[in-house]
C-alpha cells in the first residue's frame, strides 16, 4: 500500500508536511504549559512562552533624590546612575508614569515644565530643570532581563498550596479503585466467556447496555444510599463508586479477550480434572495478562483524571480534595491570574498519567483495539 504515495514524490511531501503541522498543533498547547510552568510570574506577563528563550524587556522605576540637585548655570541638575550594581543595560526610558519607555537610551527626553532627562545605556542619567526641584522625580526605564527558568513554581505549589496533600489523596483514590474492579471483573468475564449457564446471553447484553449509562444518573440515588448505610461522603464510598462504574468496561474487555483464548487448552485441563476455579487461576488469568494490563491502565487513567465522582462522593473540605478538584475549585479561583502556579499545578497532576501512558502505551492500544474493531 506504500506505493500509493510513494509513487509520487510531491504527494509524499504533502503528507509529511501535513503530519508535521498536525503534530505541532496537537503539541503546542502542552508545550506552552510546560514552558510556562518554569517561568516566573513577571516574565510570563511580559512575553509569550514562545519567546521565553530570549531576554524579556521589563520596566522599572527609580526615585532620584531631589536634594542632590546642584545649580549649573541657570539650571538645576541631578546626575547619577539608575542601577545599584553595574552590569545591566537600559534599553528605553521615560520621565513619566504615562510614558515610561518613550525614548531610546542615549536620547534626551523633553519633560513637562521644561525639564529634560537623558539616560545612557550604562544607567548614567542627567536630569535638568529650570526651576528648583522640590519633589523626588522618578526615572522610568526598561531593561532586558535574561530568560529565567526555575523550579520555583513547583516548589510553591508543593509546599504552600496543599497540592502535596491532593497528590496523596489522588493516589489513595486511584490504587484501590484500580485493583478491586479488575479482580471482580476477571471472575465475571471468565464465567461469561467459558461457563455454560442459563441467562448468559442476557447478562452479556445487560453489560453492553450498561457501558453507556450516564454517570450523572447514579449521583443522587447513590449518595443517598451511602448516607443511609453510614458511609456518607468518604474514601470508602468513592472506591465503591469507581468499582461499580468501571465494571461494565472491564467485564466487556476481559470477556472479549478470554473468548479468544484457545479452546483446546481449557478443555484438556478440564479433562485432566481441573475445576473451573483452577482453570481460571492457573491458565486463563496468566494468559489474559495483556487484557488485564490494558484495563488496569484505563481504570487508572480514568480514576486519576476524574472530577465528577470525586466532587460528589468525597467530602468537600480541602483535606480530601483530589488534584482535579483542587485545580478546578480552588486554584482557578484563587490563583486565576497566576499563570506560572497554575501551569505547575497542572503539570503535577498530569505527570503520572503521562508516564504511565508513554511506558504502557502498547497495552493501552491493544485494549482499545480488542474492544472496538471486529
Amino acid at each position: 500500500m506504500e506505493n500509493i504515495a510513494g509513487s509520487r514524490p510531491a504527494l509524499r511531501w504533502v503528507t509529511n508536511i501535513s503530519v508535521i503541522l498536525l503534530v505541532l498543533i496537537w503539541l503546542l498547547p502542552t508545550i506552552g504549559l510546560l514552558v510556562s510552568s518554569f517561568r516566573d510570574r513577571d516574565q510570563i506577563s511580559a512575553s509569550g512562552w514562545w519567546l521565553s528563550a530570549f531576554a524579556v524587556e521589563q520596566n522599572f522605576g527609580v526615585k532620584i533624590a531631589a536634594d542632590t540637585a546642584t545649580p549649573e548655570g541657570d539650571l538645576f541638575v541631578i546626575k547619577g546612575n539608575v542601577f545599584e550594581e553595574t552590569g545591566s543595560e537600559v534599553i528605553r526610558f521615560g520621565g513619566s508614569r504615562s510614558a515610561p519607555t518613550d525614548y531610546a537610551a542615549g536620547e534626551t527626553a523633553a519633560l513637562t515644565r521644561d525639564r529634560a532627562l537623558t539616560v545612557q545605556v550604562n544607567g548614567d542619567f542627567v536630569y535638568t530643570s529650570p526651576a528648583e526641584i522640590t519633589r523626588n522625580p522618578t526615572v522610568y526605564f526598561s531593561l532586558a532581563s535574561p530568560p529565567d527558568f526555575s523550579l520555583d513554581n513547583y516548589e510553591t505549589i508543593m509546599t504552600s498550596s496543599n497540592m502535596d496533600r491532593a497528590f496523596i489523596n489522588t493516589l489513595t483514590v486511584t490504587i484501590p479503585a484500580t485493583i478491586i474492579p479488575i479482580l471482580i471483573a476477571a471472575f465475571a468475564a471468565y464465567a461469561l466467556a467459558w461457563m455454560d449457564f442459563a441467562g448468559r446471553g442476557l447478562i452479556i447484553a445487560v453489560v453492553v447496555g450498561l457501558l453507556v449509562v450516564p454517570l450523572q444518573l447514579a449521583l443522587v440515588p447513590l449518595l443517598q444510599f451511602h448516607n443511609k448505610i453510614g458511609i456518607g461522603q468518604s474514601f470508602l464510598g468513592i472506591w465503591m463508586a469507581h468499582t461499580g462504574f468501571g465494571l461494565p468496561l472491564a467485564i466487556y474487555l476481559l470477556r472479549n479477550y478470554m473468548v479468544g483464548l484457545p479452546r483446546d487448552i481449557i478443555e484438556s485441563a478440564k479433562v485432566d480434572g481441573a475445576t473451573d476455579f483452577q482453570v481460571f487461576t492457573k491458565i486463563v488469568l496468566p494468559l489474559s495478562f495483556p487484557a488485564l494490563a490494558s484495563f488496569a491502565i484505563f481504570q487508572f487513567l480514568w480514576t486519576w483524571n476524574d472530577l465528577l465522582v470525586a466532587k460528589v462522593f468525597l467530602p468537600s473540605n480541602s483535606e480530601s480534595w483530589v488534584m482535579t478538584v483542587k485545580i478546578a475549585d480552588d486554584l482557578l479561583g484563587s490563583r486565576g491570574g497566576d499563570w506560572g502556579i497554575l501551569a505547575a499545578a497542572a503539570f503535577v497532576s498530569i505527570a503520572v498519567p503521562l508516564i504511565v501512558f508513554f511506558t504502557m502505551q502498547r497495552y493501552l492500544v491493544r485494549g482499545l483495539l480488542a474492544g472496538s474493531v471486529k
Partner: protein
Amino acid sequence: MSPMMQGIVTVFFGVGGCVAYFWLSNLALDKVFFPPRGPHAGRNINRANVIRPWLFLLPALSALGLYLMYPVVGSFVRSLHNRSGDEFVGFDNYSTMFADPGFQTAFTNNFLWILFVPAASTFFGLLVAQLTDQLKWGNIAKSLIFMPMAISFVGASLIWKFVYANNADVGLINAIRDMFGAGPIDVLQVGFWNNFFLMIILVWIQTGFAMVILSGALRGIPEETVEAAIIDGANPFQVFFKIKVPQIKGTITVVWTTITILVLKVFDIVYTMTGGNFGTDILPSYMMSYMFRDDGRATAVAFVIMLIVLPVMIWNIRQARAEMR
C-alpha cells in the same frame, strides 16, 4: 488515620476479601456441599457446575445492579419528588425545567456538542490514521497525537486556558491577533462561538482515540482490494474514499457512537473553563448546578440525559447480539 494508610488498608482488605470470597466459596462448593466423590459423585459435579457460574458472577452483578441499574430507577423516582425529596410532585420538575431558558440553552448547546465533537474527532482521527500510515515516523506522530488521551479534562482545560488567554503575551490566539494588529478578545465570552472553543478541547483529546481505532481498521483492509483499485487507475483520493472508507464504515460508526456517549457524560470542560457562563452550559454542567441544592431538578436533568443515550444503548446491544451469533 491518614488517607494513605486508609488506602493501603483498603487495598489489603478489599483485594484480600475478594480473593478470600472466590477461593473460600469455591472450596466450600467442592469440598462441603457437592464433593465430586462418594455415591452421588456425578450428580454432585453437575450441581456444582450449575452453581459455580453464579459464585463467579455474584460480586460483579451486585455491583452492577447497585451502581448502574438501580440508579436508573432511583433517579427517575427521585425526579418525581420535590427539592428535599419528601413530597411527590409528579412531573413538575420536568415542566419547570423545560420552561427554564437556562435548560433550553444547555439543551441546544449539548445538541451542538453531539453534532460537532464526534464528527470533528472522527474526521481528524481518520485523516491522521491515513496520513501516518505511509510515514516512517508515523508511530511517533501517532503517539504524540494520542497523548492528550492520558490528560485529565481539567488538565486539558487548563492547557487551553493558556491558549485562549485574554493577554497577548500569554495566549496564542490573541498573540496571533496581535500580530495582525487586532485588539485582544476573550474568546470564551464571544457569544455562540465560545461553545466551539470549548468543543475544540474535547476534539483535541478524542482525536487520538479515533485515530488509534481507525488506523487498526485501515490495517485490516485486505490489500487486494486496494491493489485492484490502483491497477484500475484510481488516484489516492479515490482509493481512500471509495475503497477504504466503505470497508471500515462499521468501525467509523463505533468510534462515532463512543465519542457521542462521552460527549453526553462530559462536564469537566465547561465547568473548568466557563462554569456554564456566557451561554456555554451543557446538560451535565447544568445538572451539576442543581446538585446538592435541588435533588429533584438534578435527577430530572440526569434522566433527560439518560433518554438521549437510550437509542445508542439499544443500538449497542443489538450490535453485540449480532456479533455473538
